[in-house]
């Protein structure tokens, strides 16, 4: 560790680190554009200038290694003057686009201009005219006039996505960012360039002109779209998800997320089922929650009493660990069957973040014993059971089983009893005797376990109102099927304590410890 003095205070920083990250870690606010903790050093913006005693000129802190005994002035008048100068030069050609720029409100140029700028333009010459609304890729749009040439996007495409679609063309004050001729910004992580762009030059098409950022509430959560479990922030406004943003977690996703996961949130806003229905055929008859639960319990209970092998349960890997645990108890104690398996959708994977399992909690289902182990009846065997008529009733959570079984209506038509807990409208619901509306990841509290066994917290970003959570549905069904369940609502934190007590791999997990960046489970 090296000891350095910053503005009169002595702080300890790791040897060999650069000055800027060391200062930022200690809460010293140094303005910067081109520096990014996960990208190589560029030193192109000159915004991070500080004064180091013994150096003849101001120096950029992002590319100055710390030395023991260094004396740094991070905010004196000389430094402030230099920052003002850098800003003035950046603003010489910057368009007055703030009212129509999606970045406004979270723009580094606005923030620093507000803090260090002169508030007045001393130039009268017309500003540089460049291309606006350049369609550089299917998910990202570029505005060359707003670019401050920090080259973060260029480095991202070279170092992280390793696709190198972007580059700086021309020189000096003619420099512009663009894609190579004939190429487009198509990589699977392309919207990350819009995240790291400190200004509004690169923007996500999905979020383009959609909502001002100051109306957005953010909640820390986990991406539900694959087993990697990238840490995200859910941005909500007007009772809808407006966007998902990645959140830094060095153990999982650094500061990135894939485009697929980022854009897959529409199911929370649209096509939801909100009221329970009873009876097959379209349109099914809507029912009160009590009636629907009674009917589901009556049908499932009748089969459970006659023959334990006439029933099977399909487990959704989108449920939280706590819901899965309660669901497991319901299947064993209420349905009195051991026939259950998780229906996990699969898709393309890469060697970075994107995992083949397109659901967040497949690992949780396996850890909690809700996926068929080898030798047990698995999803294919359950399907065969339905087709031969030995399995006459199904309790299904999620709708993925429809696709996994080849979207075949005849399988589900054979069933005597089909009870589905699902959040979205789906063809499968047309075959259900009882549909119980579920909640999505954005509306509940709980934990997911990612592919590597890290337990991470999801948080309620949208208020589902009166609608019960999936956990409440399982408890209510269990009570109606004669299980001994004390009254009271579903409490994820309490259920997690039960999981910790009964699943050895989870013994280090606590609700509070999981809260921030998650806790790894212990490999058996």
């Amino acid at each position, binding site marked *: 560790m090296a000891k350095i003095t910053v503005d009169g205070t002595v702080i300890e920083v790791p040897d060999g680190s650069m000055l800027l990250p060391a200062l930022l870690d200690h809460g010293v606010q140094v303005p910067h554009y081109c520096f990014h903790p996960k990208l190589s050093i560029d030193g192109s913006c000159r915004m991070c200038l500080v004064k180091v005693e013994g150096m003849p000129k101001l120096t950029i802190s992002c590319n100055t290694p710390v030395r023991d005994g260094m004396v740094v002035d991070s905010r004196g008048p000389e430094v402030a003057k230099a920052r003002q100068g850098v800003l003035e030069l950046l603003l010489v050609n910057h368009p007055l686009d*703030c*009212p*129509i720029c999606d970045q406004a409100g979270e723009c580094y140029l606005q923030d620093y201009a507000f803090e260090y700028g002169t508030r007045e333009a001393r130039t*009268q010459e017309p500003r540089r005219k460049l291309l*606006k609304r350049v369609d550089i890729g299917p998910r990202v749009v570029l505005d060359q006039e707003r670019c401050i040439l920090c080259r973060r996007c260029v480095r991202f495409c070279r170092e992280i996505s390793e696709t190198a679609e972007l580059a700086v063309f021309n020189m000096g004050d003619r420099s512009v960012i663009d894609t190579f001729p004939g190429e487009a910004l198509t990589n699977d992580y392309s919207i990350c360039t819009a995240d790291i762009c400190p200004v509004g030059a690169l923007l996500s098409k999905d979020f383009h*002109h*959609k909502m*001002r950022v*100051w*109306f957005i509430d953010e909640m820390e959560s986990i991406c539900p779209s694959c087993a990697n479990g990238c840490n995200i922030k859910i941005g909500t406004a007007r009772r809808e998800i407006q966007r998902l943003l990645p959140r830094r977690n060095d153990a999982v996703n650094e500061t990135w997320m894939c485009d697929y996961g980022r854009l897959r949130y529409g199911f929370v806003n649209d096509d939801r089922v909100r009221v329970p229905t009873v009876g097959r055929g379209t349109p099914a008859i809507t029912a009160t929650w009590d009636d629907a639960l009674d009917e589901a319990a009556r049908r499932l209970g009748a089969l459970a009493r006659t023959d334990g092998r006439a029933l099977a349960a399909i487990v959704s890997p989108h449920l939280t660990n706590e819901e899965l645990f309660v669901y497991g108890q319901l299947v064993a104690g209420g349905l009195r069957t051991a026939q259950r398996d998780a229906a996990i959708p699969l898709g393309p994977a890469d060697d970075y973040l994107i995992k083949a399992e397109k659901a967040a909690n497949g690992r949780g289902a396996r850890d909690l014993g809700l996926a068929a182990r080898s030798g047990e009846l698995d999803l294919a065997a359950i399907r065969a059971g339905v087709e031969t008529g030995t399995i006459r009733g199904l309790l299904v959570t999620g709708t993925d089983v429809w696709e996994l079984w080849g979207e075949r209506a005849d399988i589900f038509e054979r069933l005597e009893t089909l009870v589905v807990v699902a959040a979205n409208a789906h063809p499968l619901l047309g075959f259900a005797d009882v549909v119980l509306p579920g909640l999505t990841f954005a509306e509940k509290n709980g934990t997911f376990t990612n592919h590597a066994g890290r337990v991470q917290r999801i948080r309620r970003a949208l208020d589902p109102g009166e609608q019960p959570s999936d956990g409440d549905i399982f408890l209510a069904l269990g009570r109606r099927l004669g299980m001994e369940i004390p009254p009271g609502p579903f409490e994820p934190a309490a259920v997690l304590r039960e999981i910790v007590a009964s699943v050895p791999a989870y013994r280090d997990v606590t609700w509070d410890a999981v809260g921030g960046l998650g806790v790894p489970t212990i490999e058996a």
Partner: protein
Amino acid sequence: MASRVVTVERPPRLRAVDTMGPLLIVRGLLVTARHFFRNLFAFMRGRRTIATILYPEEKMAWSPAMRGMPVLVQMENGKERCVACGLCEWACPVDCITIYPAETADEIERYPEIFDIDMSRCMFCGFCEEACPEEAIVMSQRVAIATTEWRGSLWHKRDLLVPVHELDPRLRYIRRGYDRPDVPTPAQTAERLEKR
């Protein structure tokens, strides 16, 4: 709590004349008659002596400082000047503005697809006008906005648009706040560049 003495003026003791009812009626009628004949003669000679105006046939000329209902400026091409930046929506203390932005093919790429003001909540504070970077929402002189229908107080964009020339006095008034003689106009700049 600190106490404070307030001296109030009580009505004086009644004089004898004040208690003679019928006489007071005559005195009052004399006042009425005096005003009536004064106004009548003045009216016949074509000079006005009263402050009362014949509303609604006659309207007062208000100063441009007067703040009526906020309206949207409609440019000569018929479109709104608003770019849906959302600042008025944010500034409004009673949250009565709702904007849904969208993209257009015009040079300025953003416009309000929906711009609603709930006039039953607006309190004519003018913060929206002050927040607007585009001079796109201004306080008009429109005040007769009562409605018999509950929904009628929700004003949509097409009803809020007012041609820019009608709003000229107000626009000139609000520009006074930031008129800067020391900053050259675009024309002056062009001229200067021409000379170089």
